[in-house]
């Protein structure tokens, strides 16, 4: 149990993929304009990540490693991510049509987001078990959601404050993200 909590802290906060590897920044910037969108995008990413990582683990153990196809792994991963996300979207359409209507336009954006592939590669590098990859997926998603929500709250404050003219818009946002990243680095001593 303590191992799981440690994993959650280390992946979601200390080694937050967005801040350390700079993946998924486009979504962080574009989706944090309003807090409702931030919730929706963050939860969709969490959902996709928690489905994709175990799926990729299974593909890895059943096909890639026994047949020594490591040179094709990136292609396989990307295709499998697409299949899993589209299948879960279809399932959502049947089970919760109202939720599907809200998520419909977001899923392609999340799907083309580099954080999915980055999380998959992170999990494969660490040679995790099936359960471990599931937990990693959820933790990466929670870290992403946490950062997105914090950033959207901060943006609300930035919008209401008097920013110097050269920094207005994207520059102040990127500076904020940089300061964020430094702040999260300080957590690595935990």
């Amino acid at each position, binding site marked *: 149990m303590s191992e799981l909590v440690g994993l959650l802290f280390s992946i979601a906060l200390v080694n937050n993929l967005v801040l350390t590897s700079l993946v998924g920044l486009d979504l962080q910037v574009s989706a944090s304009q309003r807090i409702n969108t931030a919730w929706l995008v963050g939860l969709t990413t969490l959902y996709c990540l928690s489905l994709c990582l175990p799926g990729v683990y299974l593909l890895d153990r059943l096909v890639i490693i026994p047949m020594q196809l490591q040179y094709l792994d990136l292609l396989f991963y990307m295709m499998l991510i*697409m*299949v899993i996300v589209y299948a879960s979207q279809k399932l959502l359409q049947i089970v919760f049509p109202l939720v599907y209507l809200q998520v419909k336009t977001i899923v392609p954006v999340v799907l083309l987001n580099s954080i999915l592939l980055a999380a998959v590669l992170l999990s494969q590098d660490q040679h995790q078990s099936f359960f471990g990859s599931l937990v990693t997926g959820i933790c990466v998603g929670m870290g992403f959601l946490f950062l997105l929500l914090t950033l959207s709250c901060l943006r609300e404050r930035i919008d209401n404050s008097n920013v110097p003219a050269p920094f207005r818009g994207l520059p102040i946002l990127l500076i904020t993200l940089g300061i964020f990243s430094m702040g999260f680095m300080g957590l690595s001593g935990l």
Partner: protein
Amino acid sequence: MSISIIIALVTIIFLTVMIGLLMPEPDTISNQQTQRNEIDEIERLLPQTQCGDCGFNGCRPYAEAIVNRVADINRCLPGGVETIRSLSAKTGLEVKPLYKKTNKYDKPRIALIHEEHCIGCVKCITACPVDAIVGAPKQMHSVINAYCTGCELCIAPCPVDCISMVPAQ
């Protein structure tokens, strides 16, 4: 070695076919246009009271839900049976009895203003989507029973809580 290549090919073909089967229809401009036209046509049939009785935020969201087959066509209380018939003719869905918000009330209900408490603030008149309340500032207001759809939108704005719902005759 050859077996591994064959398995790689089979996996790639399988994944490609799955992507093709599962991928949702792309939102091309012509697709969006046809869907927008469909929504417009459905919206024109709705009574435009914007009361929100169907569970959506207004008539346009409800029309979108009908086009996407998320909601049934029998949820529009102000429209009544007539709207259900015209929607059914347009969409090809079968006619169903009117959906009721709760099972507590069998009969449709309308608003009644208790006139001795009314202070004439006009707030319910601005809230009413079908202009079924008559009155003027500092004058007593009254509901025209024939026009009231029972959407309950006038209850919340009333500062003295003098509006209640009663069964329609």
